[in-house]
């Protein structure tokens, strides 16, 4: 059978190839085209060099003069190799790229502009990811080759099929807090929908509603602050999609400004934005759902994709081998006169906004970060000297923030009396007065001086730290610690006292239990614990630990369900006092997991448990037996 299909395939390919007409006559045309291209590029270079601002502004057509927006000129601060990227979105602590050709999703940490995780998803989803949308703590993936919506959990990086869209196939996808939305893929031969439906998938239950919640013909879909909107770019139809039923309400149809050979839709700043290209220029139309008014402008370049930041709408177009990033005032539609110009392949670019930056994928495998914060100087962020993440710092499979080292750094920041305001995949975000900083750590695999020398750091005389102008580096307790600005400001402007406090805290907050002087763990008096079954699967149990002198330090192994379940020590049970920041306990896993630490008496009926990771928890002695829930 195998030979047969291969032979038939060979014959078929040879036959089909023989039908193709030759095109040798096109050689002259091609050479002329290439020369025109070269002349065009040369001319453009001259124009740009001579009067780039005037030239670019003249390419933007508008019926009336308009004021120029005050937004600053964006600046590329990093370019990262992420894999063969097809889509990008930001959220859940990082920037996520769908690498269709690779069958992976890459997670870029905005703290250091590095890929900190590459997650294989095609095994689970049956195909490479062609789109990604991050909403809250959910990463939604489109695996359109296999017609499924995938879900990636940022906490543990588990990948699963969230919904099978069915035989209609998958077109564009978007997501909001309530649902994931996909539109049917069109039959490439007939340009008609395979079946006229789009699909709403409940993001909580992954349920695909039965037919009835269908809408026809739409090709592009987007969600944002003005709701969920779908576009039929061939008919110029724009429709609002009801959030619960998924039914379209046509807001405009036959609108020439919504039609084009290429189109993109975005929702932001209370408007619906439609970009269409029918030639060398891109037309951007703004639809106001409140008034049904449409205004449009033209921008140089074609094939635009859009993203909304808090202050602007960003439109990326391309011409020849250049990408043009335009900043547009969402209210006045004023276009920043000079776009950010990037060289490379931008036909298949994707774009998103997050972490104070626009992120643009281009050249098939690159992701560029473009700083957009007003008034911010944007130094180039140097590559990190050490890899971070679970593979380096801890053995957990998930992100670095779940590692003991991340929890320790959180305590260091608290000890230095700063506030943790957020987290990324491999860094904590902290507020220091008017500054916003990222802090992270990595295993000190070699002396900090060597790293500093290799990476161009300079020792700061007044501190025990090194600076390369964009971040600080120092060593404490077998770890390298890093500090960088979360707003791309020069880190050297940070007051020295901040560094001093963090260095001091990093060298005093225990990273592990201090076993010095600890006595062996007392052996239980019996293996048979007396217990009494109570309703609701609960039990009343009696201690089996022996009496010990009420002073000094003892090794102690917390049971399978942690110190929050049971501490049997010194012939008594003990109550572990949850710290003020206990919350859901995510930073105190030894409350519900086994742990090996120490117990030190501080009084006859009080003690301190020091966990293996250095945290100290107050214990109070309980009288007599205690009642416990089952340990699962």
């Amino acid at each position, binding site marked *: 059978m195998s030979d047969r299909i291969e032979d038939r395939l060979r014959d078929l*390919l040879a036959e089909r190839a023989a039908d193709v007409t030759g095109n040798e006559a096109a050689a002259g045309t091609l050479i002329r085209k290439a020369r025109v291209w070269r002349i065009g590029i040369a001319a453009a270079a001259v124009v740009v060099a001579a009067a780039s601002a005037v030239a670019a502004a003249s390419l933007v057509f508008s019926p009336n003069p308009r004021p120029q927006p005050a937004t600053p000129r964006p600046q590329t601060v990093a370019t990262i190799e992420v894999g063969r990227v097809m889509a990008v979105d930001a959220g859940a602590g990082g920037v996520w790229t769908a690498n269709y050709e690779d069958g992976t999703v890459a997670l870029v940490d905005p703290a250091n502009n590095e890929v900190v995780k590459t997650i294989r998803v095609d095994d689970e989803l049956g195909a490479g990811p062609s789109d990604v949308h991050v909403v809250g703590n959910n990463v939604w993936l489109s695996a359109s080759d296999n017609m499924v919506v995938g879900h990636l959990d940022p906490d543990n990086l588990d990948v699963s099929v969230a919904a099978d869209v069915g035989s209609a196939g998958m077109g564009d996808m978007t997501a909001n807090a309530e649902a994931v939305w996909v539109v049917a893929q069109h039959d490439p031969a007939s340009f008609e929908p395979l079946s006229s439906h789009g699909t709403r998938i409940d993001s909580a239950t992954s349920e695909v509603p039965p037919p009835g919640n269908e809408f026809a013909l739409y090709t592009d879909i987007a969600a944002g602050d003005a709701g969920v909107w779908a576009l039929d770019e061939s008919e110029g139809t724009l429709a609002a999609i009801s959030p619960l039923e998924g039914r379209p309400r046509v807001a405009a149809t036959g609108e020439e400004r919504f039609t084009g050979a290429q189109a993109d839709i975005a929702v932001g700043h209370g408007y619906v934005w439609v970009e269409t290209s029918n030639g060398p220029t891109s037309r951007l139309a703004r639809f106001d759902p409140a008034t049904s008014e449409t205004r449009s402008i033209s921008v140089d370049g074609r094939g635009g994709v859009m993203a909304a930041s808090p202050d602007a709408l960003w439109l990326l177009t391309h011409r020849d081998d250049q990408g043009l990033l335009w900043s547009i005032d969402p209210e006045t539609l004023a276009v920043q006169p000079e776009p950010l110009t990037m060289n490379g392949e931008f036909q298949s670019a994707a774009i998103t906004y997050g972490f104070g930056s626009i992120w643009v994928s281009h050249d098939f495998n690159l992701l560029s970060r473009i700083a957009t914060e007003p008034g911010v100087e944007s130094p180039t962020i140097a590559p990190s000297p050490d890899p971070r993440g679970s593979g380096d710092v801890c053995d957990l499979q998930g992100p670095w923030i779940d590692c003991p080292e991340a929890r320790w750094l959180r305590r260091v920041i608290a000890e230095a009396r700063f506030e943790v305001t957020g987290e990324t995949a491999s860094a904590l975000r902290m507020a220091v007065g008017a500054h916003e900083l990222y802090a992270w750590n990595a295993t000190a695999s070699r002396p900090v001086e060597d790293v500093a020398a290799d990476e161009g750091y300079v020792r700061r005389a007044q501190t025990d730290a090194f600076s390369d102008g964009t971040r600080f580096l120092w060593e404490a307790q077998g770890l390298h610690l890093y500090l960088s600005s979360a707003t791309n400001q020069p880190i050297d402007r940070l007051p020295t006292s901040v560094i001093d406090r963090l260095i001091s805290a990093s060298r005093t907050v225990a990273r592990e239990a201090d076993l010095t002087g600890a006595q062996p763990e007392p052996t239980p008096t019996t293996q048979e614990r007396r217990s009494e079954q109570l309703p609701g699967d609960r039990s009343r149990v009696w201690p089996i630990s022996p009496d010990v002198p009420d002073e000094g330090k003892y090794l102690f192994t917390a049971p399978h369900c942690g110190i929050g379940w049971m501490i049997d020590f010194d012939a008594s049970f003990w109550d572990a006092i949850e710290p003020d920041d206990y919350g859901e306990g995510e930073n105190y896993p030894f409350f519900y997991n086994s742990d090996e630490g120490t117990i030190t008496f501080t009084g006859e009926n009080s003690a301190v448990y020091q966990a293996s990771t250095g945290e100290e928890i107050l214990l109070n002695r309980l009288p007599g037996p205690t009642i416990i829930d089952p340990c699962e």
Partner: protein
Amino acid sequence: MKYPVAMDKSAEVGRRRRATVRRQSFESLYLTYASSAKRLAYLLTGSEPVAEDVVQEAFLRMFRRFGDLRDPDSFASYLRRTVVNLCIDVGRKQQRERRWRGAMAPQINQSSPSPEGAYETRSEMWRALLELAPRQRIVLVLRYYEDLTESQTADVMGCSVGTVKAYASRGLQALRQGMEP
């Protein structure tokens, strides 16, 4: 530093001569390779107009980089890789937003499959080939039309030999299903 006028003229003559040689060489390469490149692009995209566009774009890119080619003998390999990458790109665009769907539609016969499920005509098998995942189709075309080895195919596609084997296996399996009565 300023050079004497004569030196400027000499330099200009040299540049023109090099440009002429380059143009002639490139035309020669185009005449040699364009047809085979177009056939490959057609098998990868299923559309002759798209194949023409792909080949034009591929040659434009090659022309821009022509002076940088360290080994002109490798032109065919570079061209093949460029064509494949462009076809992959076309497939990606087609998938994501159907932006090129007008130009990109494979010219495939819409006849329905035979009741037995087996390919009765080559056009049915051709349609099945075009409905494969893009990377599977590319591997099959490179292996069974271009007669590349698995290693050469992996090199063109920028992936591992294992990946090539997997795509080939899945692609053939999918085609094989259409042969089963």
